[in-house]
């Protein structure tokens, strides 16, 4: 689907499937629905954080977020959404803002459309608890939109790490992953390869080699994660930069 130097890296992204399926029928629509469900399943937490930050109680936020995703998955969301075909993240946020705006008033009825299973909220919530930590004062001063982006960034990173871990575990290299995971983003100077080698019972050279291996794979997984939420591979860098900017502004 995409013209790329390394087509094997960028398989058809979920978001592009969703966009392609927006006005279609049958198989393409089903694929789109599945892709959208998968995206929502991964990125519900930023939405939830946003709602909480907007001042709703935990329980109300849960309900609202669930309703929101129900709406997304049940209706022909994209058709109704703004037709600026942005990224999944920005479109989701905008929709969420509209949703909350309308939530207070009016009778709400589930509109028809789509062919997706119901939101299994409990299952989503239980998958991989998130581990974001920020200073209290920063949290207080963050605008909800910034928190949304922050959470989004954390989700992307966590997801990629989780997949890396599973790949390692699947090959009986969990121990290796656990030992090296904290050094995936580190500079060469910060790491004591000798110490790591001793702990793992292998030579320094082995540590260096596997660390490099893990890093590269992590990077692939990370970019793949991001790519699922954008339309074209070229947008990946831009999206990452946006998220980095969000993180920086939290400082």
């Amino acid at each position, binding site marked *: 689907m995409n013209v790329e130097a390394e087509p094997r890296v960028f398989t058809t992204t979920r978001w592009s499937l969703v966009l392609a399926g927006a006005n279609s029928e049958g198989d393409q629509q089903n694929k789109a629905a599945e892709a959208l469900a998968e995206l929502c399943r991964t990125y519900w937490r930023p939405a939830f954080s946003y709602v909480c930050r907007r001042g709703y109680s935990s329980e109300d936020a849960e309900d609202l977020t669930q309703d929101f995703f129900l709406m997304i998955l049940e209706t022909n969301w994209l058709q109704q959404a703004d037709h600026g075909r942005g990224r999944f993240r920005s479109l989701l946020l905008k929709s969420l803002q509209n949703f909350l705006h309308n939530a207070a008033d009016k009778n709400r009825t589930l509109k028809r459309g789509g*062919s997706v299973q119901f939101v299994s909220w409990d299952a989503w919530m239980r998958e991989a608890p998130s581990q974001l930590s920020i200073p209290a004062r920063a949290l207080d001063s963050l605008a909800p939109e910034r928190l949304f982006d922050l959470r989004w960034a954390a989700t992307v990173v966590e997801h990629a790490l989780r997949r890396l871990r599973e790949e390692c575990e699947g090959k009986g290299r969990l121990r290796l992953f656990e030992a090296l995971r904290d050094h995936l983003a580190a500079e060469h100077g910060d790491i004591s390869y000798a110490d790591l080698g001793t702990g793992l019972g292998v030579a320094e050279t082995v540590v260096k080699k596997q660390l490099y291996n893990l890093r590269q794979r992590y990077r692939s997984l990370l970019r793949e994660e991001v790519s699922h939420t954008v339309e074209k591979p070229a947008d990946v860098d831009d999206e990452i930069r946006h998220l980095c900017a969000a993180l920086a502004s939290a400082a």
Partner: protein
Amino acid sequence: MNKPISPPESLADLIENPTQCPRCGAIARLDHGSCINCLLSTGLEAQAETSREAFERILAEDNVADNEWRLGHYEILEEIGRGGMGVIYRARQQHSRRIVAVKRIFAHQVNSHETLVRFRREAEAVASLDHPNILPIYEVSESEEGLPFFSMKYATGGSLRAAAPALRVEPRDCVRLMAKVARAIAYAHDKGILHRDLQPGNILLDGNGEPMVSDFGLAKWLDENNDLTRTLETLGTPGYIAPEQAESPGVNLTFASDIYSLGAILFYLLTGRPPFVGANALSVIHQAGATPAPRLRSLAPSLDRDLETIVAHCLESDPDARYQSAEALGIDLEHWLRHEPIQARHTGVFARGRKWMRRNRTTTVLVASLIALGSVIAVMFWEKESPHPMPTGIAAIPYKSIAVLPFDNLTADPENASFTDGVQDQILNNLAKIADLKVISRTSVMQYKAGAKHNIRQIANELGVAHVVEGSVQRAANRVRVSSQLIDAKTDRHLWAESYDRPLDDVFAIQTEIAKAIAGQLQAKLSPAEKSAIEQPPTTNLIAYDRYLRAKKVRAVQTARVPADMREETRLLNQAVAYDSTFLLAYCELAQAHAYAYHLGVDRTPARVALAKAARDAALRLGPDRGEPHLAAAEVAFHCDLDYATALSEIAIARDKLPNDGSVIALPAYIHRRQGHWENCARDLERAVQLDPRNVWLLQDAAETYHHARQFPEAASAWDRVLAVAPEDPSTRVWRGLVDLDSRADTQPAYEAIQNILTEDPSAVDSIAEHWLYLALCRRDAAEMGRALASLPPEGIVRRDLLMPRPFCEGLAARARGDAKGAEAAFIAAHVEMEKILREQPDYAQAFCVLGLSDAALGRKEDAIREGRRALELLPVAKDMMAGGVVLTNLAIIYAWAGEKDRALEQLATAIRFPSPEFLSYGQLKLHPFWDPLRGDPRFEKLVEESKKPVALK
């Protein structure tokens, strides 16, 4: 579904001492301290990427395998197996050099600390099993990285799966082996441990071919929260899981589920395949529930009929129809081996169940057969022992009577259960409006789980109906399919059945049609008013409806009405009316919820009353001709205003429109009680029980009525009747014990009940904390008092009308122990709290009682007496005989503590004439420290004797 997320998790964990990342300066981190920004920006670097194949290839190049691990005290030697849940290694124990098997659970399976704790506890319980055919677990532990693992005996013979082909050749070997396994399972069941995941892969063989069952119940803790599909995938082949598990995995399992699995394994051994096979896990399970298992001989004709019967008896989809114990199965297998006749040949006979051991809250209520047995016993007991004739409910069962059982949720998503319940609920409500029908109330029918095969005749008997309605609901996106059938309970024939496949919005129309069809089938007369009431949908807004149903579910689940649950209930109902301001039923429920909150002392403020009345008014505006708003108005009048006249007149209006509503009958009963017409109360409660025979609260209220009136033989059998329906209910069990305390001053039964409850389920302490303290006081057991105090909730004891804050309870205990200083400090603190409460709720009579007692304990005589009298003013017996009785008694105690013996005795003599929910019975007078200042006085002793008699009632 409503798993609360505490605020920190909803936003982020907070860092105490934040530091900036040395590289980029950002401060947001992941738990391990990794900087998210760095981890993110590494995605921008211009390095090449790696495909999965290349990655794994390089990984494999170096031997940093997990098998060089030390896990705890074990050296990992080699991997011998891998499943969905974890990896099994052969390992060597460091010190003893013994070869063991170590199973490490995949980290991503353990999603919370809580899971880990439970896993550990369960594993340790299993480790306590000691049986030759159970694989011993040696140790349960965690690695340094926090990964849980456990070590067990290393079985050199592999699993049954591998050995199966060889075994199949000789059926006797299969049976011999499974008989041993059955005995092992019986042993575990005796200890209250279910396996939950019996399958050939979990039965290992040692060097001599002896079977050893492994992996008891451990999968449950890891997969408990996963939906069924993932559970099944994780566990491997689903062909051995009992079909009742299809409904809600993990929750419904009983001993019978293990027995099913045993049968399935035997089937597999003898034929080479499990009873059901299918394209995917879900289809296998559904088949197992919907169709009977294939006969053994259809696959292996050379086997004999007795063996076929045994296997079939295990594989019944109705758990009640299987062997009732693994031991029974083992015995039959052994009979077969010896060519002796087998038990299973006698179909329809169910053995007496063994004593049920509850290990944790999620275990299900007793199987229906045992309940039936229990209720039969209760009936016999009444007739024999009770001098006071109690309606036994064995009156003739009218033809035009039905029970609408919970519907089956056929959508894979368990969250749809609430919608399914709503469909059943509305059909029930529709039918209940028909005066010409007897329709059993919801509370009673909800106890029969959907999905499990119902024994219609038995259920109909228990409920006193001639017909039963069953059904199922399937929902996908914007469509819904509802199937329903009407069954004649005597003959088990379907009198009517229909299936509706419609758009979602039509669901209410479907409910109306089903109700009308059923009414028509039974030839029930339908008045025009009833017809139009049935045709009106509760709401057209599905989200509002969802909130409403969830609120009802919260109310239904509570066995003790807890403030947090009440808040949740009102929150949901508020949402319901926000989404649909014409939702009459939601307003009615809301009015009732608020009224209860006031009544139960959760919130005794005028504001709460105002909320109740506002909701009631909204309902009345929306439907002045409907019954429900008037019922709500009656509840509000009763609970908030103690305005009996209004309540009774509202009930009279409601009764016409709601002929099958249990509360329309029960509410007058409560009014009678408060007015002192206890006989009428008892009679009306029994009538309400007819319509709602398994409503635990109703049954409890009936029992309490007898209890407070000091009619102890009736009370005993009434409590037994509750236990027949809810044998596990902690509070009922204690109450049953209190009969002995109150009637004979014997504390032992209540004490034992409490000890048993705490042993079986420590978390049940919440529902019995006050009884525990009270008992400890009567027994003068300081240590027990301390333990009971420790288990009190922070707000103290919040009973029906009486609030005894924590310091007050501590004061009572200290005083009883003779700790004057401690008592003083505690009562001073109690005094402060009570004053605060009274500032906010100045007419709260019972609060004055507690305040007065505190002051009496502190020696402030005049204050104490004044406060005790004030309570009496606010709540005279004439106004409310139930609550008023408490106040009367309380004043007597105040006088006693204040040293005013004469007045105390006079007061007591008055109080004794009234039924009293607190403090007053033969046993209490004899034992409770409250009455210590009066002991020895002959007048007191005379009153004590008099209290042996029941209250003389009108």
